[in-house]
């Protein structure tokens, strides 16, 4: 169970969404206050005192805005269902079907707590619950609005708008949960990442090759292209050569440690994730002329052996689309001038 992502800090957009959620909660608080204070002769709308509690998530969400997302998730996923349960209880006797909303609120609370203590998948669960609650509240608001339009009652229309504010909060919460900084890494993404890591560790194709010009620097026979590190680094100098394997790029890094004369080569792959590092000391090398081309043979300790194809780097890169100002005939003449064999 990985708690890492929900324990990390958020970028700007999730914070903006949290601010909007806080504004939504504050709006409900203010609207409820007005409806309670204003005489029934002005607005004849019954509202629940429990809705005044929306001020709590409004304050807490702003307070936790610079904390990792799990704090905001806990606040919203616990406070709002508790308030809704408070408003639902008086209505349960009249409409027992509302108990389903009660159940959904309970699921939301449990998922929120589970998310806070480290379960990343609870974020996905909360997305489903949030969408369901949004749809249910939208359906209820829509029904009230239809009745209000047909009966031309302004009070009912205001009630529908008042109910829509909770839909707005659920919508924002859903948008917050699907943000990259918050959402769970999908199965497909984990699968791809795992395959990439396994490939990087254990797999390479038979056609993998290195360019001729990189061979001597890799072997330490030409150190003019080596990068010299700072005086306090245990590695005196290093050089990285690229092994091309289809669409992949493997990196062979030759390193020379201070106080040593031998070259040590590490093998990595250029991915979004970084390796801890693996390699071998270079004891001996040779070249092998096979039918398909030239190979570099590298030997390490304890029977370690590596064989890499060597290819010449092409002079011009292959392009599908030619730029408007590129003259094909002029290019061909230039090639012939450089090497008459190209004719």
């Amino acid at each position, binding site marked *: 169970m990985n708690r890492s992502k929900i*324990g990390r800090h958020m970028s700007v957009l999730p914070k903006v969404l949290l601010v909007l959620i806080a504004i939504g909660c504050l709006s409900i608080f203010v609207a409820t206050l007005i409806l309670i204070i204003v005489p029934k002769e002005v607005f004849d709308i019954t509202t629940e005192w429990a809705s005044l509690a929306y001020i709590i998530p409004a304050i807490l969400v702003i307070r936790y805005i610079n904390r990792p997302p799990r704090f905001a998730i806990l606040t919203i996923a616990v406070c709002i269902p508790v308030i809704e349960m408070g408003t639902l209880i008086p209505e349960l006797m009249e409409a027992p079907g509302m108990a389903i909303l009660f159940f959904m609120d309970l699921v939301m609370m449990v998922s929120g707590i589970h998310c806070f203590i480290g379960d990343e998948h609870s974020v996905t669960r909360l997305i489903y619950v949030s969408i369901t609650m949004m749809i249910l509240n939208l359906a209820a608001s829509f029904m009230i609005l239809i009745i209000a339009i047909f009966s031309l009652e302004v009070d009912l229309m205001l009630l529908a708008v008042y109910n829509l504010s909770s839909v707005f909060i659920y919508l924002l919460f859903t948008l917050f949960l699907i943000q990259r900084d918050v959402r769970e890494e999908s199965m497909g993404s984990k699968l791809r990442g795992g395959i*990439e*890591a*396994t490939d990087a560790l254990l797999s390479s194709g038979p056609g993998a090759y290195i360019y001729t010009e990189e061979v001597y620097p890799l072997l330490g026979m030409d150190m003019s292209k080596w990068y010299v590190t700072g005086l306090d680094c245990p590695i005196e100098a290093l050089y990285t050569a690229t092994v091309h394997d289809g669409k992949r790029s493997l990196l062979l890094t030759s390193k020379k440690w201070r106080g040593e004369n031998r070259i040590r080569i590490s093998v990595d792959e250029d991915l979004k994730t*970084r390796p*801890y590092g693996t390699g071998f000391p270079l004891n001996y090398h040779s070249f092998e002329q096979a039918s398909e081309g030239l190979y570099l043979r590298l030997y390490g300790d304890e029977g370690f052996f590596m064989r890499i194809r060597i290819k010449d780097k092409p002079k011009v890169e292959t392009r599908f689309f030619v730029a408007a100002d590129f003259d094909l005939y002029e290019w061909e003449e230039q090639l012939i001038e450089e090497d008459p064999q190209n004719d």
Partner: protein
Amino acid sequence: MRALKAFKILPYALGMAMGILLLAYGGYLLYKDVYVSIEPSSLIVIAHIIMTISGLFIIIVGRRDLIRCIGLYAVSLGLSRFALRLDILDFDDMVPAAINCVMILLAINLMYTGASFCMGRVIRRLSMSITSIILAMIDLLMLVTDGSQSILPFTPYIDTNTRFVECIMYLVLLILLDTEFIRYGTSEGRIVTHLTRIRENYRMDDDAHINPIVAENLLNRDGNLWIRNNDGPVDREMTFTITGNTMEANVTAQIWKGHDGIYLTISSNPGSIIHANRIKVDVVRREGNVLHMYGKDGTDFIVGLSKGARS
């Protein structure tokens, strides 16, 4: 950690709840069939008997094999829906008949997917989830309209309480299908589990970090985190976590007697360590707010320092 462990019991608690619901609901429906209904259909009575027995079975063996119990639960639910819909299927009115046919197909699918789980394999999880969602939504719709026949004439009259119980039963099944145990029980889930372990053993995120106290202990090769266990070749040992955005690795650092470097054994989970990434760090340097570790075996990595990381 105790809270996390408490949540691990949740699937089994839900499984028990599943058995109790099935037993209670099946028993109630059987009672209605015997004492309330006039000439109940034999298919419906058989379905309710199976439901009751399944509930009892799940309560007894649920803890030992949750997957098979979920399968039994799905088959019982599907069978009762199938029996009920088949009993009221009447082609005199085409619209209700068409809707009943759809519900019969859904019930058959629930039984079919449940049968896969009964064989101990988590397959067709998505199909079962979608079927449960649709059936739950239909029950929810009934509840919202209070089961009124005038609005939805294709349903027989069933009181709101039983409709509510049915909806809860489908939702419990949905929640069970969403537990980590079931999600990672599919063939894709098992593959992801193994590949994630390999990934966490051998690679780290760009933002990988450790606790600054751990860093101090590694730099000094001494400190309060090191345990002098004097275990054979090992002089002292400490464990810590390297945390990243999507990965977390458990590291056992050891200093062996007579050896200069620090041996790191990196594994994705604590507990038994068999397959792991074993590296040797010869030099540890602090470079600003990062720790750079070098090893002559090719080890070369950087970790950030963050107070939020666990030691």
